[in-house]
């Protein structure tokens, strides 16, 4: 009687479903994660033609770079700001006192980040195809989506660590402080070849730079023969931040707020 098991599938399903409802009902989250990359793409990728960037036309180049930017934002905000505010509310403490499997909570957040990220990539692809000269094959679109969806994982783990480091009120500012400079220095806003030398030297140490390289390859950029190197750096980022997040999660044990 006491050893009845709750239905794990149901827990993961409900946790994910309600994570969606919760996020969709916060207009600030839904709008800002989707609107920012879209506006940037329309402004920089579709409004004026900069000719060929590498092997790619302007609209296709920026589809990959702002797609990367969007996916990263969805993961960093969903995890970073979400976890920090739920810690602040005490919802996290209530859940930790309950028999909820902690993995269900993180799985739900990952699913929401992935779906928001995919929605951004699809929206930009449609905009680029209709209003710009994006002409991707179905296979290329699938490759782009696959690269960016898997690319959510390192930023989800980074967001998780930030969510445990930041306070509920400072979290949006702290996440932006990571997100925006990192995106800029990785060449997601302005192509890396136009950036100062010092930034070019920093970029290879930043995760978004490597994810964007995978996205460029997916939409037909000249192969740089460093795919595994990019994947390797992203893996290292994932592992380092995951370890940090687990450490901070444990430290959070028994901490009270307010």
């Amino acid at each position, binding site marked *: 009687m006491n050893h009845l*098991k709750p239905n794990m599938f149901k827990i993961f399903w409900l946790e994910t479903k309600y994570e969606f409802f919760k996020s969709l009902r916060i207009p600030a989250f839904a709008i800002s994660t989707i609107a920012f990359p879209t506006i940037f793409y329309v402004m920089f990728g579709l409004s004026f033609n900069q000719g060929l960037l590498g092997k790619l036309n302007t609209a296709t180049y920026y589809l990959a770079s702002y797609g990367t930017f969007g996916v990263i934002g969805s993961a960093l905000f969903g995890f970073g700001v979400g976890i920090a505010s739920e810690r602040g509310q005490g919802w996290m403490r*209530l859940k930790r006192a309950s*028999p909820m499997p902690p993995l269900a909570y993180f799985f739900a957040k990952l699913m929401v980040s992935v779906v928001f990220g995919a929605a951004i990539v699809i929206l930009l692809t449609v905009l680029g195809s209709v209003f710009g000269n994006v002409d991707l094959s179905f296979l290329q679109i699938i490759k782009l989506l696959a690269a960016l969806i898997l690319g959510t994982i390192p930023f989800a783990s980074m967001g998780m660590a930030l969510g445990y480091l930041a306070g509920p009120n400072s979290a949006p500012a702290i996440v932006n402080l990571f997100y925006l400079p990192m995106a800029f220095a990785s060449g997601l806003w302005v192509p890396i070849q136009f950036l100062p030398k010092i930034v070019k030297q920093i970029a290879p140490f930043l995760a978004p730079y490597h994810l964007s390289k995978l996205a460029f390859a997916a939409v037909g950029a000249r192969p740089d023969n460093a795919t595994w190197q990019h994947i390797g750096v992203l893996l290292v980022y994932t592992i380092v931040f995951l370890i940090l997040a687990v450490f901070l999660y444990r430290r959070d*044990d*028994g901490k009270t*707020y*307010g």
Partner: protein
Amino acid sequence: MSEIVAELKKVDKNYGKIKALKNLNLKVYKGEVIALLGPNGAGKTTAINLLLGLLRPNNGQVRVFGQDPKNANNRNRTGVMLQIPGIPETLKVREHIKLFSSYYPKPMSLPAVLAATGLESLENRLYGKLSGGQKQRLHLALALCGDPDLLFLDEPTTGLDVTSRRALWEQVRKITKSGKTVVLTTHYIEEAESLADKVVLIKQGEIIAEGSPSEIKAITAATKIRLITKIAHQDIKAMPAVRSVSYNGVATEILASKAEGVVLELLQTDKSIHGLEVRTAGLEDAFLALTQKKVA
């Protein structure tokens, strides 16, 4: 005789240099409703967090259902209402309950939870749109939805107005009748009296008294007499029923278990008495008297 459901054995808990709990022993028996009563900062919430496995003691042992409180099966049998600022505002009452219910192996049905907490007409309302009392009722619903054997209610009515407080007591009383073991913390003596079978008085991390609500009421019931007088403090202290005497810079303050005799004697001794005030002492005063007595 009865089964011990939860226990703190010689527990010390420190936050840095602050000693939140000092060598505390507490036994909770099956089916009883026990209230930890004390002023803010007494260590009540620390005791609850230890029993929930959210904190570890520095010394001593914590046992729930005979096991470590972090044991997964314990969590299945435990429901909690914590003192928290809130839960996500953009989920509906119904959604919050359904989600929490899914964590438990044999949850109550949604209609049963809604009925037990009086939330039937609010099931489709977003949490963010609820009043303070309604929010607390939803927190209670989340504690209850897993049909737990052991229920922790940490200051369930703090911050509520009198009407909402009484309404919540009514819900809690219904639940306690069902035979669940309940550990409640509060700093309202009426709350402990109205809900509990046993009351444990805690002050500065130590248990200073325990007993039935009426016993505790008798210990803590006191009157505060305030007056300006020339009578020496030691003379006042010697009077029967006087528990403590102090001087606040303006007037003399006397804590007494019964006021009438003391006032009569004071007036007979000193004709110049003025500024006389007599009122029921608060819990803080009663606590002060109790601890002073212990030291003396």
